[in-house]
């Protein structure tokens, strides 16, 4: 008797759980994502392309690419360098250093912008000095780049360090014993072993750099056609009730996010299968 009740419960339970989960996820997440594209195409393809071809929109796209184009390579180099130092060597304070690299994750976007205002703003540390030289950082492009650098600082390092710690340094030491130089070891051994995580780290870093809103909003000064990145331009258009144009630009960023997500799933599968193959090598 209890057997049949359990079976019934087991059949009802999953159906209910799956139903609630799928329903909840549709309402909470899928509908908003769908709304972005529906709203963007509300006035048809013509309206969509008109919104994107607007000079202010083009400038915002260009500025976003510029900020990401500077911040991502710098943080990419940092991520590679830091993960080499941290994962291939044993030294005291390693855990602390990893925590410090994660620090920007714990700082909210608005505060991430605020700190640069405090350093380079008109009344900040270097404000008067910058003024003397007539250099503008805050409410200008350099401030946007700096805020983006801070916000996306940990992304590449954070993808690489755990993976490289797991892989250890044996292959590199083997390469060394076979006569390879430091650069040869890095290029021929380390890099191929981390390529998928690196690809995802860079894409995530890039998606964050292009999509950052709070920090950039604080340092930008909101000058239309001058210091507007794509997210800031979305805000201006939205507040001007130009909803279609706002969603048109938002759809570009949303696509970037979805592509990043797809790449993540693909790369993490690759890394997992490579790690398990490597595990088979050692067992």
């Amino acid at each position, binding site marked *: 008797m209890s057997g049949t009740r359990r079976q019934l419960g087991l059949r009802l339970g999953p159906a209910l759980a799956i139903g609630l989960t799928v329903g909840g996820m549709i309402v909470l997440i899928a509908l908003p994502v769908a709304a972005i594209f529906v709203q963007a195409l509300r006035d048809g393809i013509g309206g969509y392309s008109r919104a994107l071809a607007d000079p202010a929109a083009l400038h915002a796209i260009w500025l976003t690419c510029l900020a990401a184009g500077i911040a991502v390579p710098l943080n990419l180099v940092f991520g590679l360098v830091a993960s080499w130092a941290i994962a291939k060597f044993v030294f005291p304070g390693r855990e602390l250093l990893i925590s410090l690299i994660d620090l920007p994750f714990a700082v909210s976007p608005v505060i991430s912008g605020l700190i640069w205002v405090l350093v380079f703003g008109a009344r900040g540390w270097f404000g008067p000095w910058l003024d003397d030289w007539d250099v503008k950082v805050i409410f200008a492009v350099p401030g946007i780049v700096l805020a983006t650098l801070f916000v996306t600082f940990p992304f590449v390092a954070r993808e690489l360090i755990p993976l490289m710690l797991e892989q250890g340094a044996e292959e590199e030491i083997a390469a060394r014993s076979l006569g390879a130089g430091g650069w040869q070891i890095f290029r021929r051994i380390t890099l191929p072993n981390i390529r998928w995580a690196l690809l995802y780290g860079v894409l995530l870093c890039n998606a964050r750099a292009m999509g950052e809103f709070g920090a950039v909003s*604080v340092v930008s000064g909101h000058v239309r056609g001058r210091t507007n990145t794509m997210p800031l331009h979305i805000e201006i258009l939205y507040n001007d009730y130009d909803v279609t144009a706002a969603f048109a630009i938002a759809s570009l960023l949303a696509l970037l996010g979805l592509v990043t997500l797809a790449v993540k799933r693909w790369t993490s599968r690759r890394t997992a299968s490579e790690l398990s193959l490597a595990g088979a090598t050692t067992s």
Partner: protein
Amino acid sequence: MSSTFRRPSPLPGFAPTMAYTLVYLLLIVLLPLSSLFLQLGNLTWESFREAVFDARVLASYRLTFGLSAAAALFDLVFGFLVAWTLVRYRFPGRDLLDATIDIPFTLPTAVSGIALTAIWASNGWIGSWLDGFGIRVAYTSWGIFLALAFIGLPFVVRTLQPAIEELDAEQEAAAAGLGAGRFAIFARVLLPALVPAAVTGFALAFARGLGEYGSVVFISGNMPFRTEIVSLLIVTKLEQYDTNGAAAIAVVMLGASFLILLAINLLQQRVRRLLGSEG
């Protein structure tokens, strides 16, 4: 110097890469962050208290902390259901569902903000329907709750998922063999094992909610004392050239999120030690 500092290794490049790491960390993260605390030097204790405990600021703390906690709690309940379903059941579209979890994490916050508003505003797909019942979500604290729940969900699901995967099927079978009913197994055997992950997920979602800005400002209405979150208040202070006030509030919020992350770390260390001594 480096040879006594670290364990010797036959690999080259420690000194330059470590030096680069530290200098870059100092320039991009540590020095700018320290400006926040140096800025406090400009304030007297009185003016700091005034900036931090002003009635409007207090109202925004209540709103931000209260709604972040409520949203994290919602995420905990719903996130548990999602994680459980994903781990325990196989059904068509499961992979797609699993991918959907990360969307709030990869979508730019401003984009999430306007998208949520479009759905839940009184002329939106769901908002117009709710309007018929006299319920308003956008431009009320419900809107903020919704945005924070949206943002925090991946943190709970991605923390709980591996913990549920690791649940010991043998333990469950053993409990059933001892005559425990399904509810008793769930409550006495499974739930306690998930508490550390649940607390961590909740805390991560909560901490993320405290600092959230982009996804909230579009849907919140931003009415002082009613729907004004702390992040927005910091921006407002800055726009009024009250740098000191902004820095003071920022330090309070930063302290709160550091405390939460510290608590998570301590919790995880304790759990690791407990499990280590058992295993």
